[in-house]
């Protein structure tokens, strides 16, 4: 579970309010989609959840633990995939995965089984012994995803995870996201692809200019519109100037 309580974050000495008094809860077993126009505050929110940014005010908890006070315990429960796969290019794919296994303390048997399974699924088996520097953008994205899956975390936070993936990998990722949540775990992800959000998410939050302007299931969001319409139309209506 992820819980944000009145979280705010601003830049440039308070002149730019990136996230404004944000409050929401992502329940266990739920795929939560986070939508918003460019610069709405999606990545800032995600970075605060995983500890890359510190909120100016408010609090965030993961599985009931405060991300500021129990930072290390929260990190053990969470894995994160950024919007751009900046990874150690001089390591091989396998060295990177082993590094993640070492810092999360994944036992050898589980490590081998999971690496084998995800590499096969993402068609990376033949590249895993090569330096990440030799990977394409999509392959880098896949290795970051594999690393995020390796510790079998309680909570996964993904920032635009489908960007750069080929259709087959995107299909598998969506399946994996569903399986993750079917085990009672939590998944929070941002996307610009409305069809994916509509089909995949149990609940959706829409952020605009740092404020959460809508949150609920697809049906609940549809009720907000003037007539029954697609998520894309709702999004355009809610975020339009």
């Amino acid at each position, binding site marked *: 579970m992820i819980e944000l309580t009145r979280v705010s974050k601003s830049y440039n000495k308070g002149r730019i309010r990136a996230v404004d008094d944000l409050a929401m809860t992502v329940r266990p077993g739920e795929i939560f989609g986070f939508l918003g126009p460019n610069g709405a505050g999606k990545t800032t929110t995600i970075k605060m959840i*995983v500890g890359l940014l510190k909120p100016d005010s408010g609090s965030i908890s993961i599985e009931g633990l405060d991300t500021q006070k129990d930072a290390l315990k929260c990190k053990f429960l969470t894995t994160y995939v950024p919007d751009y796969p900046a990874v150690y290019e001089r*390591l091989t794919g396998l060295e990177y995965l082993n590094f*993640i296994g*070492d810092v999360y303390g994944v036992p050898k048997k589980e490590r081998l089984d999971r690496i*084998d399974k995800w590499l096969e699924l993402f068609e990376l088996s033949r590249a895993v012994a090569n*330096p990440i520097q030799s990977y394409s953008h999509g392959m880098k994205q896949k290795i970051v995803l594999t690393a995020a899956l390796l510790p079998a975390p309680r909570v996964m936070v993904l920032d635009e995870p489908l960007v750069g993936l080929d259709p087959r990998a995107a299909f598998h990722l969506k399946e994996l996201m569903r399986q993750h949540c079917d085990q009672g775990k939590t998944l929070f992800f941002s996307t610009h692809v409305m069809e994916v959000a509509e089909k995949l998410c149990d609940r959706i939050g829409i952020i605009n200019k740092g404020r959460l302007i809508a949150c609920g299931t697809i049906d609940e969001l549809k009720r907000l519109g003037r007539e029954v319409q697609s998520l894309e139309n709702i999004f355009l209506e809610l975020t339009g100037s």
Partner: protein
Amino acid sequence: MTAFSSLLRAGLKSNFGLALLVHRLFKEKKDLWLGVLIVLAVIGALPALYYLILFLQNAYFLLKPLGQESALLTLGILAGQLFILLFGLYYVISAFYFSRDLEMLIPLPLKPFQVMTSKFVIILANEYLTVMIIVLPVFITFGVLSGGGLSYWAAAALIYAFLPVIPLAIVSLLVVAMMRIVNIGRKKDVLILAGSLVLIAAGLAAQTAMSRYSGSAGPDAQAMTAFLASPDSLLNRIGAGFPPSIWATKALASGFSRTGLAHLSLFAGTSLLLLVLMVIISEKLFYGGLIGLGEIAAKRRALSQVQMSRKISSGRRPVRAIFVREWRIMNRTPIFLLNGVLVVLLVPLIFILMAKTGGGGNNAFLRAVMTSAKPFHMILATAAFMTICGSLNGTSSSAFSREGGQFWISKVIPVSARDQVKAKFMHSYAIALLGILSASFAAAFFFHARPAVLAPAAALALAVAFILTAAGMIIDIARPLLDWTNPQKAIKQNMNVLLAFLADIGIMTALGLTLNFLFKAGLDGSTILAVLFAVLAALAGAVYRILIVFAEKRYGEIEI
């Protein structure tokens, strides 16, 4: 504005980050403490500068009656130019071939020589700042003591302007030729590294050969008298390894006389000629060595279950994992490797060559102390030599900056700041240890230091290196440079590395002053050593504690 001047302006702005710094200092009112830190670092280095000027002054008055005082200028110019020749190599390779802005510049309608020349000018601007520390004290001390008039100062400005051009142009020509040859096949990194080492070795060998060729003054008293009686013999001998330093000295010492102007023309003309040659060659070879360099073709093959099992570890071992990561990334990134591991191996080698060929001035003093009959002095000199070899590299002061855009991983993994810093400290200290080991080897085999000297010297150097490593890391974590696009920025153009260098000088000077105080207190050698060890141990413990506490605070504060 022409395309070239726009390119140059953008490059200089991006290189020095002035626009960003001004914005942060005056608009966002951030990093104001940086100014205070720089002032403190400069104040810390002032005593060292004072002693350097004192040394130059003594050397001037020693050489003046012999009519050899110009040799001092040659020494400064040569030191500056050799510094650029040796270390400019990494700089040039990195700026010409590994900066990421090249991906953006190549598709633009610019000629190869325009791109390369703009990069050359940016390196030149950096070198003016780097050699300033070496050359300016010599120029100024000589000018003041010799009562140099306007012509001296005008000539000094001109010589300074041309000083880095010849060595940098030579290095650039060699690098462009080398890269054109090695930019083939899959093992580019290895070839670049091997090529760089061959160039360094060739440079050192050429310098040695030229020094030998110039002959030795020899121990014969008559020959020595004749040598000293001949005007400028000393400067000719010192500068034999790199003749442009002789031309520059003669141009500077003779002012705007006929001899002075002739040498100035020779110096400036050669610089310009090499510059033109570099422009012509770059147009032909630059892109050939560049295209596709960032791409790595790898042979894809799946690992068997057994191979996979062998490469996979078990359980939770964060410190070891981070140490191994640091080691691998450092050793596999050519620019980091050249500036870290290879520097600690090269510096003792350079000292050995200088001592063996007599190519420098200070090394005679160094050798005299190291072979002197007083073991206590030998221990201190050897310890200073080992510390310099082990610690004067940018490993610790770029420990956090080197992570760059990947620092997000360190922020999200479940490893405490304490453990991360511990692993990074172990890595930086291991590099310092390597430097101390190679310096021990040099001291033992080339300066004939005995084990009774080597053992306490190594212990002292290890203690000082511990303090300097922690100090370098404290400086880097205070303001890590994480938004670099070119790995060179993380280690070579990182302000933290310069600040740490100044701090190192400050710490070593403070230790020197402490020693001086203990001497004057009339204590004997072994008591002084015991007191020194106690002081160092206490300092090491305190600095490491500060590092951990500060890093724990900073890891929480750094936002990316």
